[in-house]
């Protein structure tokens, strides 16, 4: 079954906002442990709403593991919510 680990970890993110497929591209992020993850590819960016509150979900990879980053457009915060390092 799924290999994902569900998390709710606030992370520091360097992102580039530019026109294109995803409009916003997380480039790298620092985890609570201090480890920096360099994003090599953004798989998909899709919005989800919790009522009127908009979140942008980024499925990204660093080549060794897949991550899900959630950007809260209301509070301007980034959270790491899924990590999947096995296949």
């Amino acid at each position, binding site marked *: *079954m*799924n*290999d994902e680990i569900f998390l709710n970890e606030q992370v520091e993110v360097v992102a580039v906002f530019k026109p294109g*497929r995803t409009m916003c591209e997380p480039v790298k992020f620092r985890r609570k442990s201090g480890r920096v993850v360099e994003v090599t*590819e953004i*798989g*998909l960016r*899709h*919005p*989800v*709403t*919790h*009522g*009127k*509150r908009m979140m942008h*979900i980024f*499925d990204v*990879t660093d*080549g060794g593991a*897949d991550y899900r980053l959630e950007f809260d457009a209301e509070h301007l915060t980034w959270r790491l919510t899924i990590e*999947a390092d096995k*296949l």
Partner: protein
Amino acid sequence: MKLGYNTARPLVMHIDLNSCFATVEQQARPRLRGRPVAIVNRRTEHTMIVTCSYEAKAVGVKLGMRLKDAKKLCPELIGIESDPPKYKFVYHQLMRIMNDYSAYVRMKSIDEGVIDFSETTARIGERNLVDIGYEIKQRLWDEVGVAMNCNVGISTNRFLAKTAAGLNKPNGLDVITHHNLREVLAGLELTDITGIASRLEKRLNAVGIYTPLEFLDADEEILQKVVFKSVDGSYWHKRLRGWEVDKRDFSLKSAGRQFVMDGYRLPHADVLKRLHHLCEETGAKVRSKGMLARGVTVYARTYDYGGWHAKYMAPLPFFSNEAIYAHARRLFEGAPNGIKMIAVTCYGLQPVDIHSRQLQLFGDEIAREQAITSAVDEINERYGKRVIHSADTLGSDTYLKEKIPFGSTRYME
């Protein structure tokens, strides 16, 4: 007089996302690309496969197989729990792209839609549809992602366009015209035709029709009076010849939801709690379309006795979760034990007419119910689905998650 083939310019395009949910997952997680992936609705090995990637299909994994059985065929198969918001996003992206080409776009399900170019602008209409088909494929790669492939079929009617879209999977583009119609049908089996399953195949066989070409050449009267015993026979006669008979929009007549139990032989009280949750979701669906319901059906499939159902048509229309649940609970009293799956459906849907004479007779009562229901709906719309719900269904969201139904996409706008 025998009806000839439709020789008009093909102006109907059918677009079908290949193994949609699996492909979207492979798009979202690049490390899944090129690997066998199965999408399931629950995080368990005993669950059925909803869809799978082409890599999994290549080794014999099929839809509807249990994940644990599929893993015997393909030990490296990766089971992924479905993630509806992702699929909805891709659905909307596909619809956005399709809407750029014609005023007439109809999504047939979450992963396929039809563009009718007879209702487009002159500038688009004069373009070659094959070029537009390749352009849509390119836009899907550019605007959604490189893993997203689709099949495109072009013909003179919806049926043949869909048939064309299924000829070369994955990522094909085919055109069926009166020139190649016989050649295409000669390469198919009867059950390859959309709408012909084993039951209809037997009925066709009974009159000596064993191939799609024989079906094409069959007499309209035989199809109408002997095989289909209805006007459907005439529709099939036209459909196979490329004439349009399926350009119809249907109004919403019913709404509901079903759920396969999360435990073996749950007691009635637990099933009832799940039924209550389904009633709340059904009520929200009905109201979101500005409708009222007249009837409720409760259906259950059991471990021992197959299917059971009960229905009730109310004298007055209703709309609140409480009213739907009250009717459903009364019906459920007659349900058998050992329920495996439960479903609730509201039928006889009609648009809200607050001036209706029947409703005015119960004016105050209905106005009060409507005010409370509207307030709850407004709060849920502002703060999130099911922020306010019945205390009885507290915690039920952990097992009754949102799922994507195949078929209608009416609730996805």
